[in-house]
């Protein structure tokens, strides 16, 4: 993988990423405790993503979060949920194979996604810690930032090839509108 420069966005698939869909009462103290202690991050609020070093929690809806973690940890975490949350009505399932995760690295990642997602991606409106569940062109996606110049995007696994082609086309060198940078400094 080449070093990302200001004019390129490196796109790679994170195939070792594990994901668990958790649905439940997100205000429940017990659920929050398990989620935050297992993910090692704070509970995300609406449209927030708390992801550090490939582990964290992404808000998905008022009763759904996506826990991201190394794939090898998924079984163990699901086991812990079963043991500790048995009495609480919830649903926790491994969706690692159902989704594909892409990493977009390079300051222009915003303009790659802004070619397909109806989202205000100016740094002022969309910053580290935010997430959006939306569409990219014709397909459903969700994305969040992990570092100032890096974002992760998830889609359905069956569309991984399509989304990969889409991202590579959108990220072609020299094809950026050079618009979102305008506001970078006043963020």
């Amino acid at each position, binding site marked *: 993988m080449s070093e990302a420069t200001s004019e390129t966005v490196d796109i790679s698939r994170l195939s070792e990423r594990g994901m668990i869909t958790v649905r439940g009462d997100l205000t429940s103290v017990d659920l929050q405790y398990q989620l935050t202690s297992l993910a090692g991050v704070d509970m995300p609020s609406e449209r927030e993503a708390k992801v550090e070093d490939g582990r964290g929690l992404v808000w998905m809806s008022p009763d759904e979060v996506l826990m991201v973690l190394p794939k090898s940890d998924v079984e163990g975490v699901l086991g812990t949920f079963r043991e500790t949350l048995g009495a609480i009505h919830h649903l926790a399932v491994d*969706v*690692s194979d159902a989704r594909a995760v892409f990493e977009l690295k390079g300051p222009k990642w915003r303009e790659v996604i802004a070619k397909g997602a109806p*989202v*205000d991606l100016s740094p002022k409106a969309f910053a580290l810690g935010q997430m959006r569940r939306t569409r990219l062109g014709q397909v459903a996606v969700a994305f969040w930032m992990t570092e100032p110049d890096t974002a992760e995007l998830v889609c359905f696994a069956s569309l991984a090839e399509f989304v990969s082609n889409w991202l590579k086309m*959108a990220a072609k060198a020299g094809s950026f509108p050079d*618009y979102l940078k*305008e*506001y970078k400094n*006043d963020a």
Partner: protein
Amino acid sequence: MSTRLAAKGQLIDRSKPIAFTFNGNRFVGYQGDTLASALLANGQTLVGRSFKYHRPRGIVASGAEEPNALVNLGSGSRFEPNQRATTTELFEGLEAKSQNHWPSLEFDFGAINAKLSRFLPAGFYYKTFIHPRAAWKHIFEPVIRQSAGLGAAPSKPDADRYEHFYAYVDVLIVGGGMAGLTAALEAGKAGAKVLLVEQTSQFGGRSLVDGDAIDGAPVDEWIAQTLNALEAMPNVTLRKRMMGTGVYDHGYALAYERVADHLPGADLPRHRLWRIRARQIIAATGAVERPLAFAGNDIPGVMLAGAVRDYVSLYGVSPGDRTVIVTNNDDAYRTAIALREAGLDVPAIIDARNMSTGALADQARALGIRVEVGRGVGKVLGGKAVTGVAISPQAGEGAVIETIECECIAMSGGWSPVVHLWSHCGGKLTWNEELAHFRPDPERPPTSADGKGFVICAGSASGALLSDECLADAFDAGRKAAGSCGFEPEDSVAPQTDAIAEQFLEPVWIMPQGADISLRSKAFLDYQNDVKVSDVQLAAREGYESVEHTKRYTTLGMATDQGKLSNINGLAILADALNAPIPAVGTTTFRPPYTPISMGSIAGEARGALFKPTRKTAMDGWHAENGAHWEPVGDWRRPYTFQRAGESISASVTREILNTRKNVGLLDASTLGKLLVKGPDAAKFLDLLYTNMMSSLKPGRCRYGLMCNENGFLFDDGVVARIDEQTFLCHTTSGGSDNVHGWMEEWLQTEWWDMQVYVANMTEQFAQVAVVGPHARKVLEKLGGMDVSKEALPFMGFADGELAGIPARAYRISFSGELSYEIAVPATRGLEFWQACLAAGAEFGMQPYGTEALHVMRAEKGFIMIGDETDGTVIPQDLNLGWAVSKKKEDFIGKRAQERSYLTAPDRKQLVGLLTEDPKTVLPDGAHAVEGPPQDNGFASAIGHVTSTYYSPSLDRSIAMALIKGGSGRMGDTLEFPVSKDVTIRAKIVDPVFFDKEGERQNV
């Protein structure tokens, strides 16, 4: 003849010549030229033939309003018709060809239409091509289509790429003239996030030519200063070559950026369509000059007065040595002055007004230019080029007083604000009597969700035509827009300029005012669609009173320029003919886009591999390499069959079926929907969703279930597995998974929000493989890892375990009637499992099979298929599935609907099997059964239709299923299916289960 001047031309760089061709002739222009200015510089005043009469046409305007100068641009995969020469930047190697003539531009056979023009008035097609009726389709329409149209259609795929881009701003400003820049400065200083778009390649708009000193600085200096100030603001973005094309609800706007039109071959997206959400939109779109209607006003060399001075000043182009000015206002005098300053001759200014006393007129007279008042053009002399003009009294009928030789006629009928963007979303207009134009009515703007206006016009777009009014208006617009977004405008004053006062305009809609029919039928209103004054008057005489009807009858304003030049003139003529005031007649509707945009920009990236998302299973790559003949199923692609070398598709399907029934087959069933339903109320929820009972299902067991909508109609089916007391896995059809998921969420979120149930769509988490056939168990036993015996895993049971070292859940279910297991494994291990099955199955004769074999085998068993046996009007009882509709349950979705009399009627169409009398004849899908005496229409009544029909390899004969009126009670009857005029297929009604009625094969 037009030519390049030795001086002037602020936009061109004479040190950079650019070679291009027009109709194969090699010309040279300069960097900064438009194609139009370069053509004029090369003496090419004839640029095309008109749409209907094939009259010679030349360049009329200098901007987006140009109706005539449309060319075929480029060649091969970069060919595009109907490109405006006035908005096409010149680039090296540009190839342009004129349009709508045969055999050549100079000699056009179609010009015969002009000679016949008195026989081709408005409504000619409607009146003439009515009888005989059949002739329309077979003779008239093909001939008319052949002769219509301007440019040629491209014959090759587009070589370029396109894209969209989403942007969110406080204030979108369309137009980078002095009004747009002034508004941007105010909104920007107030702190609003501003995007200003300018359709041309430079900022300044008309002020580059007509601008007076602003705040004491020459206008070009003021523009440079303002641009510097704007570029220093981090919250302001300026973009050139980007046109605001449309305004839509809630501040949504489209802008069309021509990224690489001027850089053909660059590895860039050619066009980028910006999809913008703006809280406020400022339309600083300027004004468009109106032509005057006089005989011969379309002869090449007749141009808008403003355009003439644009060509002189911006591009250093002379439109001809001698230019006669024809006007009803003061502004056109600027053209006379500019021409004279460029050293060109202005033999006369023909002013239709009875006096001309303004400052500009004084200036012209001081330069020695002859001014004739109370005069108009009797007619223009010339054919393919202007040779002179006959002058008549404006008040008269066209008697010629004098003839003046000239090469160019610069006309001005006044200026109309460009109100398109204001109007797109419902902004209303008001008639300005003094300036004879419609301007935006600020009291009635297009409104957003909050009921407040979200579009503001600025500068001449709002009717402020004089430069001082224009700047003051734009200044206010910028502040108002920022204020509406919650920003506090800074204390400042509007830029000051000393505008030259102008004498009033006198509306002139026809020249001379008493012009007879021979003149009126040569006075063009709409150049692009060849609509004349006489056509609109004829429409009025024939009773077309509404402007919208007149528009459609005469085609006035219906060409690609949307009547930018003809709109006001046309409706003024109509109003006059109807003896009504102009505002009472009103305008036609302005619609996006402002000027045509490329189809590529609308499609964006969605072409080729990105045209439509295709969902692929984990084994898709293997299928592709092993002869898969694809079939779309929902958004998935699935193998219809796995074709072998030299094998036909039908032979391939037959082989797969026979092998599966005899040995063992392998099916990729991953696309089946898999919805996990969990919670204390899951069983209760599913009892309401499915027609049959799911709460009585034991963990570890499966049950086939049906889902109906509120009207009782069947819409999805599948096998439900109970994982544990609170958890179910519901299989859905491949195309229905998202739909059923949404259906479940809708009921849970809107009706049964008190139920404790969560749903997760697990469709893609698992690859699912069906191992089907007499040797299925042997294959799984060979893979090893779990007990798949009859005892451990009975029919309609499932078990979790491991197969071939891969975690697996094996369902003992069958859609083929054979011994069958469906194995779900993690999707990322799907291919590995698939290949393990094939390796283990080799010794048992295993072959993969596709969706067609699946379909035939299920039909042999009489199993229904959603979408074949159902069409949205079919209830389970119609399909002999009454056994799966619970009588015990208090309620389920569709229950009450199914109790309605129509749905309980005994003679509803019911599912039956059909055996044709000739076993080799396969009924066509959808064939209708008819019965009884002929009706009034001569046909017998249709009593039902074929829903599935195949040649069954297992039975070696044709089989079909059909929905037949009262069919369940008609076993043994023979029905007639007339499939063509001479052929009627006869088939006997039988039980729809054709194969292994006792179900012994699957239960071993």
